């Protein structure tokens, strides 16, 4: 297919539908980062001493770390002193007790994004913990979840109400010294979500959080911690969009999952942050550390992600398979259009016996988009009978984009079985012509072909998310296929 196909280009040119800025007075800390800022954040959030100490330790360690250079993403150096590390919507001061008290402009923002909270409360079983900038504004379905003993709240609230749980698990999967961005997050994280599912409880609804970056120059440093006690089950959905703006915004989140014996955690993400314009200006830098630990026999963690947004995506949702028979899964669709860059993949660390992992990665590159899969499968000495299956498929649209695959395999146990399959294909003129000769428009044909390519991953998403993901891919293609 030629890059000059006018229909495809029109499709690619569709503008970012969620691009707007909400005009809300933000209570922000002046730009800059030092120990006083870390102390100020902690004080504003009235945190216990252990957390301040933890933040300071992370900050001091961060100062000693070099900026990572090993990935294939390229961007100008970030001035960490030009970023404001704390902002909260003003209405926070009167602590809204219900949606009715929430700033109407904020609610209108969600409406524009098609995320009407009030409707969602009524809609089938989805509880929403909405993060607007740095403070959780509304939490729904809490009472219903509380009946089952499930805690689903903002991270700040968890620090206040359940400090013991936070202290026990925070940093136990992603240590504060783990990597450059994780350390930065540990020092200055603002808020996020906290989930605790007690022993033997099956969470009766999908838990969902919508993130949204808004106030200019405010880096977002969410922290998410999900703990599934023995024999419990929880499915968590994370979805994001961001308003259009010119300067790059840093987003360095940390997500930690802990699944104890026989527990299962499904974590699904649809990421649609502002990708920058067609010249490559603006867009979110999405540098995220996501990791889960299967900390007991038969524990099971699945990551499913659909990454269509952000100027740069740098994330490797990983699973540490500690318990015997533990299962780790990673299903990913990453799409890059225009000048977007994605370096994403996973790490599966096999420690327990008969641990199994599955990796299905689908990369789509259009226009000048660059897409890299980077995955590590590591089988330690004691992991008898460990098995991994990896499949990496790349789809190219146009002739100026790129797809790269970097699989790392380290096996220290002779009984392990590791399989890797990879393919690269191109949406061809012949496929397009075939569909069009059956009456489909060029746009519909491209969407059909790409959705077919991603089907294996979409099948793993919860139903309502799968529909959203397909729509999102259609929208992203309009700015993403060239």
């Amino acid at each position, binding site marked *: 297919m030629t890059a000059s196909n006018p229909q495809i280009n029109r499709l690619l040119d569709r503008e970012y539908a969620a691009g707007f800025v909400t005009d809300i007075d933000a209570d922000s800390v002046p730009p800059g980062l030092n120990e006083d800022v870390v102390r100020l954040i902690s004080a504003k959030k009235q945190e216990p001493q252990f957390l301040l100490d933890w933040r300071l330790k992370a900050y001091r360690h961060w100062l000693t770390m070099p900026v990572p250079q090993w990935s294939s993403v390229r961007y100008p150096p970030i001035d960490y002193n030009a970023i404001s590390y704390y902002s909260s919507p003003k209405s926070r001061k009167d602590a809204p007790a219900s949606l009715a008290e929430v700033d109407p402009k904020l609610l209108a923002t969600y409406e524009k994004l098609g995320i009407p909270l009030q409707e969602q409360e009524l809609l089938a079983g989805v509880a929403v913990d909405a993060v607007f900038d740095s403070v959780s504004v509304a939490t729904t379905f809490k009472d219903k979840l509380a009946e089952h003993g499930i805690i689903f709240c903002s991270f700040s609230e968890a620090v206040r109400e359940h400090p013991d749980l936070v202290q026990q698990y925070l940093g136990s999967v992603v240590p504060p010294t783990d990597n450059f961005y994780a350390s930065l997050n540990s020092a200055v994280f603002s808020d996020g979500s906290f989930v605790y599912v007690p022993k033997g409880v099956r969470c009766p609804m999908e838990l969902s959080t919508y993130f949204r970056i808004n106030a200019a120059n405010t880096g977002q440093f969410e922290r998410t911690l999900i703990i599934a006690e023995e024999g419990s089950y929880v499915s968590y959905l994370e979805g994001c969009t961001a308003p259009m703006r010119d300067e790059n915004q840093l987003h360095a989140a940390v997500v930690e999952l802990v699944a104890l014996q026989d527990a299962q955690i499904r974590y699904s993400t649809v990421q649609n942050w502002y990708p920058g314009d067609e010249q490559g200006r603006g867009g979110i830098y999405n540098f995220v550390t996501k990791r889960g630990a299967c900390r007991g026999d038969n524990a099971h963690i699945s990551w499913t992600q659909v990454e269509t947004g952000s100027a740069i995506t740098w994330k490797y949702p990983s699973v540490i398979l500690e318990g015997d028979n533990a299962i780790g899964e990673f299903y990913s669709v990453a799409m890059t259009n225009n000048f977007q860059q994605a370096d994403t993949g996973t790490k599966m660390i096999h420690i327990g016996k008969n641990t199994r992992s599955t990796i299905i990665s689908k990369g789509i590159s259009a226009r000048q988009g660059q897409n890299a899969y980077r995955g590590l499968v590591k089988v330690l000495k004691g992991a008898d009978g460990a098995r991994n299956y990896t499949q990496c498929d790349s789809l190219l649209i146009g002739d100026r984009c790129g797809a790269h695959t970097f699989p790392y395999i380290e096996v220290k146990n002779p009984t392990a079985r590791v399989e890797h399959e990879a393919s690269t294909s191109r949406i061809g003129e012949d496929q397009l012509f075939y*569909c*069009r000769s*059956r009456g*489909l428009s*060029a746009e519909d044909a491209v969407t059909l072909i790409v959705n077919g*390519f991603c089907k294996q991953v979409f099948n793993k998403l919860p139903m309502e998310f799968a529909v959203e993901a397909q729509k999102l891919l259609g929208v992203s293609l309009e700015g993403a296929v060239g």
Partner: protein
Amino acid sequence: MNALLSIKDLHVSVDGKAILNGIDLVINTGEVHAIMGPNGSGKSTFAQVLAGHEQFEVTRGSIRYADQDLLALKPEERAHAGIFLAFQYPVEIPGVSNIYLLRTALNTIRKQRGEAELDAMDFLTLVKERAAIMQMDEDLLYRSVNAGFSGGEKKRNEILQLLMLEPRLAILDETDSGLDIDALQMVANGVNTLRGDPRAFLLVTHYQRLLDYIKPDFVHVLAAGRLVKSGGPELALELEQRGYGWLKETAAGAAP
């Protein structure tokens, strides 16, 4: 008799290289025409130009189809107007189920014609009935489009699409190549089911064999980008006996 398709002095080239050098052809509703010719004579190009493949450049001539300027229509608009091309090499589309493509295609075309879309039940009834004509396993309906299909299954699948979309002008591009006799009979059976007014067929083929089962009204020989000879079904038999060699000379002699 109404002229469904009327081609005048059609010249086509690809990447600056002339492939068709002045084709004139009229197809009326109810007729079945066969285009025969040696390899490389431009048969497939001709079929794909009619379906609107953008790789080919029409440098001269005109095509009228059902009182429209066919060359002004995009491939999907031609499909909406009732043109169907059964591909010589049907394309694989991984992850898209055959039945989903069929339903999307049928409902898109119905919508363009101002007809109501078929609901899931009616569609399923129809597709099962038509698949039975082609003796296709239901399993093939739920597999990805053409992925892992045998050569014969791909061709039968093309004819299934033909039966579903019920076009006014169906072009079969070497549908018979690579088919065994049983599959060939099924394909012919499918075509004969739809044959007659208000439809017309254009069969592009290398061999006479298909024409034993689908009897054409007219046979044309395409050589070096021109229709060098036209006749009735008996012309196909003559070609079977004599080959194309004698006509190639005619074509060379006739070239300007």
